[in-house]
């Protein structure tokens, strides 16, 4: 293969589609199946697409990035503003492509966008178009089909094959048959999504209950880390509000404290991140917090319902189902919104073309710190182009048979122990450790203890893992990734001795309650070297709006 894509979600699909314009040797591995993989299938499509920049009346790329930097994110000190500039420049063209592939956008009879909007959110100017969100997943599947891009379903990537720090392929496990296959490739694009299976968000045994799709076990992060790829921003926690123990896929209405006060005004005034503010409000005994949609206009309610659609093949049905089964009426009932950790922002450190520190290895989507559909699409498209161009000029690397054998032994070891510890039990324990010792409020003592527990589990439980069938083997593969991600998060959080209350993702150390000038523009970099986790700092770019020249210098996607 020229280009091997791991994961067929939003980023993986887009990367594969773009790569197919340069080579017909593109293959996608998907742990689940196309119909139901990735966050889009869980209904994480939005009724709107933004930013639609550089359109009449709307913000320019400069204004978009300026708005971004003048809001909470600009104060975090760890941004790379050119990422946002690239998104602003390149996303609208992708939307037009998606439309050609079948995305349904609300249009006027003359072909112009019917509901183009631009507005200020806090101090941030944004703009977008309204779409039928459910058609997003469908249009990507259709386009993959039209281009005859092969997707190998029910196959999880286990580990990267490498040769002298150059990628040589990936080993994949069929989760239904238990068959292990080495996929030889010139380039690999990691698109395995977020690391969602990291905390226990609700009581009881339902530990697959989470915001993102449950297959997201941080596989890409685990594979990259073990292969020695540089990882960054792993200390930043991702949180979201779960509404009535469902995900907050909810637009319109307002967030209020238990007295009914709209505290987000204070948030915008202080430029805190919204989720930081919710977390703080919980600590300040303002909890419970509610989403209050009782005052929504008919028009807004209609929009909200379209967003959480009932329509067949528009899979975002969870919210209406939840309301219906509980006998709730959003017009009458305020619903509790619980700020909940859902994973981590960071991942492989990447360049503007999606390249990582390993030659031939690229990454896109929630795998890296994109955290938006626009970011996933823009950088997946860049990674697809860069990987394909790289493959055109690169030699295929030899497969190291010793490496392959080690991967095979590690993968199948749990099959040889019929009466050991089930991977599901270990996963529950690791997530329990993170929930107690590495949750949103962190301290040195708790993090150190959490790291000790992870080490103990690694040394004592991994050799005792047991798998009776391919399904459990898949869970064993996943739990190693969950463990690596948990360790990276706690180690990076321990290393970063400050608190960042800004941006969509925050870092809170009660023993270092303020932002520290010494950490400004510093990112934590993690690397696995000779079996040890190495931590260091790296300076990120200046926190200002990039110039046109800076964009033009990276506009052309190079291998």
């Amino acid at each position: 293969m020229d280009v091997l894509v791991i994961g067929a979600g939003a980023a993986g699909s887009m990367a594969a589609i773009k790569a197919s314009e340069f080579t017909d040797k593109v293959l996608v591995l998907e742990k689940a199946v196309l119909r139901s993989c990735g966050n889009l299938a869980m209904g994480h499509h939005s009724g709107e697409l933004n930013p639609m920049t550089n359109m009449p009346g709307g913000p320019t790329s400069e204004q978009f990035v300026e708005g971004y930097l003048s809001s909470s994110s600009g104060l975090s000190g760890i941004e790379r503003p050119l990422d946002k500039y690239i998104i602003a420049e390149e996303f609208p063209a992708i939307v037009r492509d998606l439309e050609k592939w079948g995305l349904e956008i609300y249009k006027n009879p003359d072909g112009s966008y019917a509901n183009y909007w631009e507005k200020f959110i806090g101090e941030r100017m944004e703009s977008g178009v309204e779409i039928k969100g459910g058609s997003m997943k469908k249009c990507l599947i259709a386009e993959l089909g039209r281009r005859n891009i092969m997707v190998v379903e029910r196959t999880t990537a286990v580990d990267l094959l490498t040769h002298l720090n150059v990628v040589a392929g990936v080993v994949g496990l069929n989760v239904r048959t238990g068959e292990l296959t080495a996929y030889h490739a010139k380039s690999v694009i990691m698109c395995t999504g977020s690391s969602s299976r990291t905390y226990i968000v609700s009581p009881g045994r339902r530990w697959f209950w989470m915001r993102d799709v449950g297959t997201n076990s941080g596989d890409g992060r685990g594979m990259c880390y073990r292969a020695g790829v540089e990882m960054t921003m792993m200390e930043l926690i991702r949180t979201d509000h779960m509404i009535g123990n469902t995900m907050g896929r909810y637009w319109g209405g307002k967030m209020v404290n238990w007295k009914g006060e709209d505290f987000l005004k204070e948030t915008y005034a202080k430029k805190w991140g919204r989720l930081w503010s919710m977390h703080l409000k919980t600590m300040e005994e303002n909890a419970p917090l509610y989403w209050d949609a009782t005052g929504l206009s008919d028009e807004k309610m209609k929009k909200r319902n379209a967003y959480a659609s009932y329509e067949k093949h528009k899979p975002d049905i969870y919210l209406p189902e939840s309301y219906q089964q509980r006998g709730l009426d959003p017009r009458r009932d305020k619903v509790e919104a619980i700020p909940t950790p859902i994973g981590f922002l960071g991942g492989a450190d990447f360049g503007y073309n999606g390249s990582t520190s390993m030659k031939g290895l690229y990454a896109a989507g929630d795998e890296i710190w994109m955290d938006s559909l626009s970011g996933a699409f823009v950088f997946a498209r860049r990674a697809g182009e860069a990987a394909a161009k790289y493959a055109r000029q690169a030699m295929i690397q030899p497969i190291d048979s010793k490496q392959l054998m080690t991967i095979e032994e590690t993968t199948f070891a749990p099959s040889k122990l019929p009466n050991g510890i089930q991977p599901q039990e270990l996963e529950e324990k690791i997530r329990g450790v993170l929930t107690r010792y590495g949750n949103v409020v962190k301290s040195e003592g708790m993090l150190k203890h959490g790291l000790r527990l992870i080490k103990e589990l690694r040394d004592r439980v991994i050799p005792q893992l047991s798998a009776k069938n391919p399904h459990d083997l898949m869970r064993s593969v996943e739990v190693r990734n969950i463990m690596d991600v948990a360790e990276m998060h706690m180690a990076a959080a321990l290393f970063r001795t400050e608190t960042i209350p800004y941006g969509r993702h925050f870092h809170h150390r009660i023993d270092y309650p303020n932002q520290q000038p010494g950490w400004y523009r510093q990112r934590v970099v993690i690397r696995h070297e000779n079996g040890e986790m190495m931590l260091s700092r790296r300076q990120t770019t200046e926190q200002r709006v990039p110039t046109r020249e800076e964009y033009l210098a990276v506009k052309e996607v190079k291998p």
Partner: protein
Amino acid sequence: MIVNVENEKCIGCSRCYEVCPLDVYTWDEQTRRPIVTYEEECQMCFICQEECPADAIHIRIPITFW
């Protein structure tokens, strides 16, 4: 039960077994019916319920999540 399959309504098309992202179902080839094998791994994404052509699947949200 969270995942409820009505075997009388089920037409044996195996769509649920094919689409479940978390591999909750296994398939009984003899009876041509799904078996809910890993119910505790169900995310309640409702995709099987949505895709079932015979309307034979009902996902009940457990009260622990109310």
